[in-house]
């Protein structure tokens, strides 16, 4: 049952991404390009996605998940350095290629070699994060617990 829900959710996500135009890097970069020919499409995508999600979060207050005991607890870390530095790195790459993780996977079958290179590099980046994090915290001599 949980696997079926994951499959349906992934398929809906993929369809939503291609229909909304978010697998088109020019549309994403167009949204970020405030000094060029600005494309507001991404704001409509975000707005559309908010509607079902706000209702879903409201529903989490009065019921339990279909196949689990409880909903995930909110991250209590607050706004910390990793969150901001990580998001800045992500934003730089997002602007440079016009791809983020969801569309990168959704467009893998029709995005050609660039899509494959991006997705491979992204996974390598993900897998080396912990090592880099340890390296940076060592050089700054601030031992910190990893997530």
């Amino acid at each position, binding site marked *: 049952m949980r696997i079926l829900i994951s499959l349906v959710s992934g398929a809906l996500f993929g369809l939503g991404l*291609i229909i909304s135009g978010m697998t088109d890097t020019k549309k994403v970069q167009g949204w970020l390009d405030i000094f060029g020919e600005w494309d507001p499409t991404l704001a409509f995508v975000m707005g559309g996605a908010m509607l079902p999600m706000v209702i879903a979060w409201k529903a989490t207050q009065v019921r339990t998940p279909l196949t689990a005991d409880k909903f995930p607890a909110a991250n209590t870390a607050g706004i910390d350095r990793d969150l901001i530095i990580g998001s800045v790195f992500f934003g730089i790459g997002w602007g440079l290629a016009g791809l983020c993780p969801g569309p990168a996977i959704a467009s893998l079958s029709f995005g050609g070699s660039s899509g494959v290179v991006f997705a491979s590099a992204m996974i390598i980046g993900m897998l080396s994060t912990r090592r880099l994090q340890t390296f940076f915290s060592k050089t700054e001599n601030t031992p910190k617990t990893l997530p």
Partner: protein
Amino acid sequence: MPMDWIYGLVGGVLIGCAGAFLLLGNGRVMGASGLVFGMFKTTDRRIWIENLAFVSALFIAPMLFVRPLNIGPTHASENVIVVAIAGLAVGFGTRLANGCTSGHGVCGISRFSLRGIAATMAYILAGAVSVVVFKHFLGAI
């Protein structure tokens, strides 16, 4: 152009439905970066299969529907170095920040999470600066 906005809205609602379904069904947050990364961790076999199912469907559904729905190309840069550097930055950044556009953006903002809102502001701002620098100054994209 306005037709693109309508497609954006329709696609956005579908993305929101996908997130709502995963949340209310499995009690999990739909974050693409976390789900992709989760395929390379083998701590919990049950969760690993769920992650694999989600990412496989995310890959296969567009493959099947890209022709029938007449979806255009990705227009991604042909420059391998640019694409590889961008991919590394996205992979590293989303793991350090523990989320991307779907996790912090779609799921975080709709929860009115301060972390989600702060992260979204940070990556949109960095993304806008990135486009200005790489497109308008360096001409790399």
